[in-house]
């Protein structure tokens, strides 16, 4: 869902840069001096994993592919502030080094796949704690749901930005973007659940670290 330059207008791109910069500053403030010893390598490997996994496009219906965003997984493990920082690093490197996502569109891309996806993923996961059932099962179900919804929410944000830019009407962009990303989100949910179960089986303590 990396927006290239040209898809969004200059005002939308500028607004994206301003909002993203503000949120990243807030995320730095929220996480500063709060990182535990175990979280330092976790943040490194999460950034590395998300970058590598984002390269692995999987085919979905109709000659279309999708890839992991990873913001929900990062937010579940480290909280929304750290997730926003991880996604900003990934998106900035993809943009600056690999020319994936436009330079002027970096702000809107951080907004969609970093900020929107992290917050939606985090709060859906936290909200899932009220579901009945065993703790592990609840964490996996709400984690999968959080991941799926984070992708759909990011695609809705992207559709709104395209519409405000005058690139494509909202009535066209919204159902098309949300529809295709409802399918891609299933992949996001599956990968997120798989990684969460792997962590539960090997290092369950990493899941207990993020307590609001």
């Amino acid at each position: 869902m990396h927006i290239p330059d040209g898809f969004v207008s200059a005002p939308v791109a500028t607004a994206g840069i301003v909002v993203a910069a503000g949120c990243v500053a807030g995320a730095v403030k929220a996480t500063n001096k709060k990182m535990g010893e175990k979280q330092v390598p976790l943040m490194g490997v999460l950034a590395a994993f998300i970058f590598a996994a984002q390269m692995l496009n999987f085919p979905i219906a109709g000659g279309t592919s999708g890839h992991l965003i990873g913001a929900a997984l990062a937010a579940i493990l480290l909280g929304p502030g750290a997730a926003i920082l991880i996604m900003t690093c990934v998106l900035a490197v993809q943009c600056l080094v690999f020319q994936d996502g436009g330079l002027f569109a970096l702000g809107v891309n951080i907004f969609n796949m970093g900020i929107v996806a992290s917050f939606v993923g985090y709060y859906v996961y936290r909200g899932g704690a009220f579901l009945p059932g065993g703790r592990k099962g609840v964490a996996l179900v709400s984690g999968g749901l959080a991941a799926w919804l984070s992708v759909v929410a990011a695609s809705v944000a992207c559709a709104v930005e395209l519409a405000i830019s005058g690139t494509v009407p909202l009535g066209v962009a919204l159902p098309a973007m949300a529809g295709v990303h409802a399918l891609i989100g299933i992949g996001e949910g599956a990968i997120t659940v798989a990684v969460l179960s792997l962590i539960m089986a090997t290092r369950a303590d990493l899941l207990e670290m993020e307590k609001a």
Partner: protein
Amino acid sequence: MRFKWWHGALIFALFLALLSPLASSFPDGLERVAEVKGFIETAQGAVFEVIPDYVMPGVGSEARATIFAGLLGTLILFGIGYGLARALKAKKSEA
């Protein structure tokens, strides 16, 4: 140095980068929508290029060039993520 859990995790991420040539080359969700709804032409090229499209320039085989780009990016992101988290770390160490 003792083998720690995150060494395994980093090796796993690097292993994923090795698989990058197997990725689907179909357009992604946004590209597909842009093609179908007729606004793909509004996309502009990059202002500058370093390793465009995850293919390392100057490497003969495209699969190998993609793997190099993937391994490089994965290591860069590990370094940035680790370094950033270190900078944000709590003053007193807690284990």
